[in-house]
Every structure is written in structure tokens, then in C-alpha cells.
């Protein structure tokens, strides 16, 4: 039975012309200038093992806010799932972040398997503009 070995959040992920995975900006925390804010794009890369090609995958994605509320994509365009031979790429767009704290990104593979990754979100003070002469 197919299972998820690991999952990583990153800025961008894609398959190259040899169908190998490329991941840019693997994220362990989110630093935002202010809140509330919508993040344009975040991707999740999940390593899929024991998957038989051609078999349908039953996938579900959800995000838990620091307040304990589970949220999902607000529109069909806000989520895109691509399954390669051994990887699942999930693109999340216009993510609504409203508070500091730990956000949990969860992936369901069939009802019995749940993998999650926790990402702390911090608001960083905006940098002072540099005077240029």
C-alpha cells in the first residue's frame, strides 16, 4: 500500500526533464513583514513509496492554524496536485495567515494515513531603509 515517507514545505518544486525532483527554498519557518497576509505560493513535496503506477490516490490537504482551526483552500484554483512516480507536489496559493504561531500542514493519504509538518510563523520587524548617496 502506498505511503508517505516524508514531506517538506518549500517555495518552489518541480520535475526536471529527467523527471527528477528539484526543490528551491525548503522552509523550516515563515517570516512575514506583517499580519494578516496572503502568501502567494507555498509548495509541499511528499515522498511517495510503495505506490503502484496507475492506481488512484485518495489525497486530502488541510492546514491547522495556531488557534486550532483547520482550514482548506478557499477556491479550486488555490490548490494544485501533481503526482510523479515517487513524489507528490502540492501547490498552495493565496494562503491566509492571520496570526503568529505554529501552522500545521497535513496530508491525508487514504483515511488511515496522515502526515504533517509544523511551520512556525513569525512577524519580523520591517528593515529600516538604507540611505544612499
Amino acid at each position: 500500500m502506498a505511503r508517505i515517507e516524508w514531506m517538506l514545505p518549500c517555495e518552489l518544486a518541480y520535475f526536471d526533464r529527467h523527471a527528477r525532483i528539484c526543490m528551491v527554498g525548503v522552509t523550516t519557518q515563515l517570516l512575514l513583514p506583517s499580519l494578516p497576509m496572503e502568501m502567494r505560493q507555498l509548495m509541499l513535496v511528499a515522498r511517495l513509496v510503495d505506490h503502484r503506477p496507475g492506481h488512484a490516490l485518495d489525497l486530502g490537504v488541510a492546514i491547522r492554524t495556531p488557534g486550532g482551526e483547520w482550514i482548506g483552500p478557499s477556491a479550486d484554483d488555490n490548490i494544485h496536485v501533481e503526482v510523479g512516480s515517487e513524489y507528490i507536489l502540492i501547490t498552495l496559493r493565496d494562503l491566509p495567515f492571520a496570526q503568529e504561531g505554529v501552522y500545521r500542514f497535513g496530508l491525508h493519504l487514504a483515511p488511515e494515513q496522515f502526515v504533517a509538518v509544523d511551520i512556525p510563523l513569525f512577524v519580523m520587524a520591517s528593515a529600516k531603509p538604507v540611505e544612499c548617496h
Partner: protein
Amino acid sequence: MGIVDWALTCDFAYFDPTGRLCVIGADANGARRVTSGTHRMTLVAHLGAECGDQHLDPVLALRSPKGEWRAHDDGVRFTRERRGHCLLVHLPDVVLTEVGTYTFELALGTKDPTLLELSVVVHEARHQRVHLHGAY
């Protein structure tokens, strides 16, 4: 795998200016296929939470398809980088000339070493005959 959550081989991996990991051209565990020759590649190991700040002191050895061992002293050059939970081992010019499966063995940790195995399958280089037609 002990202190290692997962590992993979790739064309190249690096940390961007904000310290985030970037991985280019990654193969699944044990499935990298290359033609015989000299290659540049990077091994990426994602360390588990229990690893903490443990000194890893990586030792890398390479076993050829015929079972011969090569280590750092025998021409397996590598450099290493570590940030947070990620360890990168860069191999700038590893010579893989025998057809078959090479196995990298990466030993990590001094107190209770973890041995990590990653395989690379080498096949014959197929030379392409190219005819160029053009005029200057």
C-alpha cells in the same frame, strides 16, 4: 537509519542566502542512474530531531560493483556543509567507470555511528553520432 530521517542523491544542493535548502535533480533513494565517467553529485541527509548539535564527523567510502572500497584517501574527494537539520556532502569529481552498482557508505556520529547507504547505478555511455550541417 538512526539519526538520519532520510537521504538522497542529487545533481547539486545548496543553502540559499537565508539558509534554506535547495535541491536540484534529486533521485529517489537508491535509484540514481548515470553513464560511466566522472560525475559531480551531492548527498543530502536530513537529520532527525534527536541528532541535536551532535558532532557528526562524516566518513565517506565508496564500494565499486566489484566490491573494491575507496575512501577519502583513495580519491573520493568530498566537502561537507551542515545547517540545522540538513547535511550536504559534495562530491566534485567522483569517478564511476565500472558498469554496475556503486554504493556510498556515509558514517555519521562518533558516539553511536549511523551508517547510511546510497546507491548509484552506472551504465555504458551511449555515444550519439551527430552530423552537423551548416554554412558560414
